[in-house]
């Protein structure tokens, strides 16, 4: 079937599918129509995707590729018509529609970087313009080139929003990232933002946890991210509310910010088909070090292969000349393959006066750099918008994602591929063609664990089926009264499963084979209703009162089953014969909130608002009732005042401030005391028993953490708004921190009990600059710079049960929470050294340690900036880059540390290694890892893309409207002094604070070619 026929068939089908709604609606609606076109002032070019709305109504549409629009069903009479698009100044013009008549409007928009009239969605489900908000909201609109360069939604956010830190964890396809917005608020609860898609809550679990994680199976460190279940191809825009000042009306759970995703919608036009196909490569580009060993002679005259520098300086052995041995299994017996990525997709959007639609589907496949590393994804979405009546609008969204990911063993994992190689031996047992006894040869891999053993023997998979359904409806019974409703369900059907093939992995009991099968169903229900009434006692003054209720319920139902002694040839629990284990998870968390908001607007220049949110939550302690979160906001577009001096430099100025509170509820069982079941053999029979192991010592007074944030800032436009700048200062203080207060072990209970008693601070600056440096028909140059600073500090941890001040909480051996310092900071005894005898070797006696642990640095970057230049040539070629810098943080290089503790790192064996590296290695047996806590500052050329837009005649030749080719690369260059493989790796991306480079696969380099075709 030819493309044209296919289009016709599908168009007919779509028309039939939606015929009923428009027919009903049309019969009931006024027949006034507004048509028109939007063009660019400087060039006269039509502008597509301009949002054209009838002010004060729900009616509007977006322009087609030729800049045209049509809005039907408009009531007769005078109206205000507003045209908005990012990159252009907005424009409002009056228009009068006669009964059964058609009015025409022409917009000529000037290029402008200022975005005061862009709309964002609020917590109440309504939209409002930026100028009406007292807070800063970051918006990301993925371009086709972004989609080509990024492999996941979290990568779409990287470096694109000030104050938003997206920490890539490594190069394993399908693994997630850690997202922090304006720092970390909580020591015990999740610091991940909540995700809202088209108004409904979307599960954003992270980590490996049976109750609330993103998976139940561990592979050493890397875990999937539920945020990445969002299909990037469906995203229209992402609005980021960064903290309580902006998100107070979201109530409990919004303390770490809200990421609002709006998916693509239809528009009033003929069906527009778009398709893409892409293919690319994924490469490991890291050079891996060798495993070292020094051969020597012991004092007893025996040969030793462990005559390392420490032993030499202690006189325990003498090195044999020229016998320093090195082998890099990852380089010489590489497990890496050339990874690939590919995908294709098709979508169509269109509609009529009464209904519009967006239908899309795509498939994406990534083969990582190990054979055991794969991610296969299928996405689909149907968004329907119906104007059932002039005053009643309904949007129905149906999203579907299927994801099948396989993770390789790595990170903190004896069986890991990188781990086994980097912790292995310096001697190649296959030298000179000798047969290895017993075989096969280990090639230097630890315990002879060749990569193929685990790659062919352990299949750790996660299969996800996710349905996200939403209904948004807006009803305006009177011009001054609007009711909105948002109802939806995010259903996640997750299947974590692992198969260890018998006799494939020669380690421990694994030769027996085993199977884990853990199906989970997670339901996230959202039901929001608001009623909003506005009143304008004077034309220049408007007040809007909004009240509403919100209900959210997250239900987790999961079972876990394990069996061992697997029958060869089988791959399910049915084939297992021993060590059966089962577990079940049933958790339910409900929040019920009331909200009230009052907004005052004066002259469309001054906006004041105040809100209250009252929440009850099922996880609050039984002695705690509800919590109220207040908020106030102010915005003043002072440059529109008559008294504001007009000049050629400063063309617009808005001042804004916001103050608000939000919270984070305790986890499901934090407030209750409970025991777990254990299986015990009594009299030869397995029976259930009660145990306090992994149980809970509850606190009936437990309440949510409360974050209070004040932010203020300004939006500035320069040079006729061709340069836009935003600057914001925020100060966020979280009180009633849930502190896991250590319990005395002699109580025989749990290790900790939660108390609300700590405080934490996050403050900093955010800035952005957007400018169009050049805008000519031959060339255009745009530049966006974003940046932020962060000061994170634990203010207090409260007191111990013995009344003493709680001075620290141990996160892990290297990280602690201590008042006066960054949460999760690195603490170790400091290390200094001096080669006193000038022998070029650092001996234990030449290393000095401090008596106690000292603060060595924070894990979250304290400063970030990103630079995104875009050059467009001849309106055909678009070259875009993203440079990303993170600085002011440390990273624990546990890869090097562990290798040195194994005695196989260069610094432990090679006398030509730097004295600093030798001292770091010597510090380990002396009791400090300080030498491995390194400056993590880096700058990356994160993305580079080139887009070629084909000439019109070429597109026409293939029956298309537009054809473009994009070549995009990611992770192309890193500038850093970090000594490890990459300063972005983290072997614990699912953990709240634990951050370390620990035998993790570094980020890979991807190149992608993508063809987009629009019909």
């Amino acid at each position, binding site marked *: 079937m030819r493309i044209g026929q296919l289009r016709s068939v599908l168009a007919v089908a779509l028309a039939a599918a939606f015929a009923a709604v428009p027919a009903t609606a049309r019969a009931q609606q006024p027949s006034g129509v507004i048509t028109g076109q939007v063009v660019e002032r400087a060039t006269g070019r039509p502008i597509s995707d301009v949002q054209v709305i009838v002010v004060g109504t729900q009616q509007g549409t977006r322009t087609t590729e030729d800049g045209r629009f049509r809005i039907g069903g408009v009531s007769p009479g005078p109206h205000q018509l507003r045209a908005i698009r990012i990159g252009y100044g907005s424009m409002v013009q009056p228009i009068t529609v006669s009964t059964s008549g058609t009015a025409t409007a022409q917009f000529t928009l000037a290029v402008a970087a200022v975005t005061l009239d862009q709309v964002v969605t609020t917590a109440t489900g309504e939209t409002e313009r930026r100028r009406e908000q007292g807070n800063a909201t970051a918006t990301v609109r993925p371009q086709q080139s972004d989609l080509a360069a990024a492999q996941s939604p979290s990568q779409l956010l990287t470096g694109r929003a000030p104050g938003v830190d997206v920490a890539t964890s490594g190069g394993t396809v399908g693994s997630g990232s850690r997202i922090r917005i304006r720092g970390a608020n909580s020591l015990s609860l999740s610091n991940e933002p909540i995700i809202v898609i088209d108004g409904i809550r979307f599960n954003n679990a992270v980590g490996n946890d049976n109750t609330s994680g993103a998976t139940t199976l561990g592979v050493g460190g890397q875990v999937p991210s539920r945020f990445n279940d969002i299909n990037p191809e469906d995203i229209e825009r992402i609005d980021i509310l960064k903290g309580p000042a902006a998100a107070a009306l979201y109530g409990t759970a919004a303390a770490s910010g809200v990421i609002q995703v709006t998916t693509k919608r239809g528009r009033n036009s003929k069906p527009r088909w778009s398709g893409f196909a892409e293919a690319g490569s994924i490469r490991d580009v890291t050079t891996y070090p060798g495993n070292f060993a020094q051969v020597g002679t012991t004092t007893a005259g025996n040969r030793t292969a462990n005559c390392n520098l420490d032993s030499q300086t202690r006189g325990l052995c003498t090195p044999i000349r020229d016998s320093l041995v090195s082998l890099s299994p990852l380089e010489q017996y590489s497990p890496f393959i050339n990874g690939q990525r590919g995908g294709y997709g098709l979508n169509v959007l269109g509609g009529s006066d009464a209904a519009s639609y967006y239908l899309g589907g795509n498939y994406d496949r990534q083969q990582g750099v190990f054979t055991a590393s794969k991610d296969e994804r299928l996405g689909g979405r149907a968004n329907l918008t119906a104007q059932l009546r002039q005053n009643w609008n309904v949007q129905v969204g149906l999203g579907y994602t299927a994801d099948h990911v396989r993770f390789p063993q790595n990170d903190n994992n004896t069986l890991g591929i990188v781990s086994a190689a980097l912790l292995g031996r310096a001697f190649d047992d296959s030298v000179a063609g000798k047969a290895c006894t017993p075989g096969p040869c280990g090639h230097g891999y630890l315990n002879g664990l060749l990569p193929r053993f685990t790659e062919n023997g352990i299949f750790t998979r996660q299969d996800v089926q996710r349905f996200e359904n939403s209904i948004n409806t807006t009803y305006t019974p009177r011009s001054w009264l609007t009711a909105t409703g948002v109802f939806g369900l995010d259903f996640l059907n997750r299947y974590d499963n692992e198969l260890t093939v018998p006799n494939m992995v020669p380690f421990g009991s694994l030769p027996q084979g085993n199977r884990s099968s853990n199906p989970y169903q997670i339901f996230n229900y959202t039901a929001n209703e608001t009623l909003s009434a506005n009143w304008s006692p004077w034309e220049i003054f408007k007040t809007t009162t909004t009240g509403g209720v919100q209900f959210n319920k997250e239900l987790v139902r999961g079972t876990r089953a394990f069996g061992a002694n697997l029958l060869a040839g089988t791959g399910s629990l049915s084939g297992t014969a021993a060590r059966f284990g089962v577990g079940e998870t049933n958790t339910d968390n409900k929040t019920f909130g009331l909200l009230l908001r009052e907004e005052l607007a004066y002259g469309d220049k001054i906006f004041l608002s105040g809100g209250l949110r009252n929440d009850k939550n099922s996880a609050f302690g039984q002695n705690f009732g509800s919590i109220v979160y207040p908020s106030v906001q102010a915005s003043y577009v002072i440059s529109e005042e008559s008294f504001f001096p007009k000049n050629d430099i400063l063309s617009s100025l808005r001042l804004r401030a916001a103050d608000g509170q939000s919270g984070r509820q305790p986890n499901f069982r934090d407030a209750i005391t*409970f*025991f777990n079941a254990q299986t015990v053999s009594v009299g*030869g029979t397995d029976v259930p028993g009660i145990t306090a192991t992994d149980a809970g010592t509850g606190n009936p007074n437990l309440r949510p953490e409360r974050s209070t944030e004040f932010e203020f800032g300004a939006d500035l436009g320069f040079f006729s708004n061709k340069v836009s700048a935003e600057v914001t200062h925020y100060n966020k203080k979280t009180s009633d921190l849930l502190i896991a207060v250590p319990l005395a072990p002699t*109580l*025989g*209970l749990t290790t900790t009990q939660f108390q609300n008693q700590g405080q934490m601070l996050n403050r900093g600056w955010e800035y952005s600059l957007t400018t169009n440096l050049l805008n000519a028909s031959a060339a255009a140059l745009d530049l966006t710079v974003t940046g932020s600073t962060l000061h994170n500090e634990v203010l207090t941890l409260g007191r111990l049960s013995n009344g003493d001040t709680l001075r620290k909480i141990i996160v892990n051996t290297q990280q602690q929470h201590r008042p006066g310092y960054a949460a999760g900071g690195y603490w170790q005894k400091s290390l200094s050294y001096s080669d006193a005898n000038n022998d070029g070797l650092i001996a234990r006696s030449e290393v000095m340690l401090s008596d106690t642990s000292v603060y060595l640095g924070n894990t979250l970057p304290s400063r970030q900036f990103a630079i995104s230049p875009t050059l467009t040539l001849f309106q055909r070629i678009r070259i875009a880059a993203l440079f990303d810098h993170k600085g002011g943080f440390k990273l624990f290089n546990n890869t090097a540390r562990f290798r040195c503790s194994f005695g196989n790192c260069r610094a432990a064996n090679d006398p030509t290694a730097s004295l600093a590296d030798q001292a770091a290695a010597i510090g380990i047996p002396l009791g400090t890892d300080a030498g491995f806590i390194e400056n993590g500052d880096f700058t990356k050329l994160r993305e580079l893309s080139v887009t070629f837009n084909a000439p019109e005649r070429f597109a026409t030749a293939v029956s298309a409207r537009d054809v473009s080719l994009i070549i995009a690369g990611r992770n192309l260059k890193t500038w850093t002094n970090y000594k490890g493989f990459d300063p972005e790796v983290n072997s614990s991306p699912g953990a709240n604070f634990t951050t370390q480079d620990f035998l993790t696969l570094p980020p890979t380099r991807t190149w992608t070619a993508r063809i987009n075709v629009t019909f």
Partner: protein
Amino acid sequence: MRAFAFRPLRLSPALGVTAVALLCLGTAACNTDKLLQVTDPDVARPSALNSALTLPALRAGAVGDFGNAFDGGNAGVEQVHLSGLLSDEFINTETFPTRIEIDQRVQTTTNTTLSTTFLDINRAKASADRAVDAYGVYAKTAADSVGYPEMLALSGMSYVIMAENYCGAVPASTQLPDGSFLFGAPLSTTQLLDSAVSKFNQALAVKGAPLTTSFKNLASIGKARALLDQGKFAEAAAAVSGVPTTFQYLYIHSETSGRQNNGTWALTVSVARFGEADVEGGNGLPFQSEGNLKSKLGFDPRVADSLRGGSSRGFDGVTPQWVQTKYPARSSPSVIADGVEARLIEAEAALKTGDAAGALAILNTLRSTSALLSLRGYAANSLLPLTLQATPATQLNQLFKERAYWLFLTSHRLGDMRRLIRQYGRSAETVFPTGAYFKGGSYGKDVNSPVPQPEENNPNYVASACKTTEA
């Protein structure tokens, strides 16, 4: 002026109705407390443990918690392994620094491995005490009371182990029924053993059917062990006089769950973390060489071992890995108390009175009792008779070596080595591993394990009372 033309507020029935509906939904008309109720079927609340019907679960929980603390299956260091590492039974063949610290006798109070080990034995005590309390409240009949003396005995055994393996400053804290905490002050080794004896006496005082022969023997051996630790040799011997040599109180490991696995198997056979030691630090016993089938010194099946297959190295890839074979499978049972220990106590009591021949006779009877050898899976005549040693010192050495071999990897050895110092006047330098440590550095001076730093959250704990270099 036009901009300020006043417009009256327009109210309508629709607004009123909708507003009222919203308010009702959120407040009085909608019971939000009911709306927010959730169920939690996965765990047991304390309020659910309120009848005699729950006593079996509490009893099983106490047994399981004790077994876990003794040599639990999740590859953590429990009391058998703590005793083995700190004494001369095990050497460390892996990479975890916190566990190397133990083997090297240089433990710190911030050692996270030790924190878990200490917590687990306290959980075992608390679990047994919780069951004891529940029996006191809900057991109305003899049938209800099955297991009651066992709980008392396990509580007592927890005290004994803490007395033998820790620094003599272990508090006994508890959670009261109202949820509040009652923090204990540090108890000396003697006080811990007194508490243990008290628990065993309570068990032995239970009347009627619940005091089965098995539980009576368990409590008797436990009491004798505590008395032996206190240097009350004759009383100890008297306490076990009625215990049959072939009696065994076992913790039954199972493959059903990881927690039920034999942890010693997991740490040795499965993943090669700890190896059987051989004259560790000069003073240690030749467990490995005498347990080696190819031993020139004569194979002793009580400490049997074999070289790990494949690389023959431990997890660290460097240290030769000799794997104990006493616990060859994940379901191999562990002996908590047995008749052999009873006889060994009697032998020591005899030796203490100067009856070396009598002591030797007891030892040789054990070595030749076919029923016992069969029970243990040893070949007949695999243990040849011992000869009378010439001096009290060598007689004591012989006795303690017999104890070490019979009670190998059962959390007795550390207590015995401490007793050699405390009760027999030997110096730590002649009893514990000393000199250069095979992984670098030197052996430290610890002869017991410290109460970990988290106990400092107990307002009544005095950290300075804990002395790890005192036996």
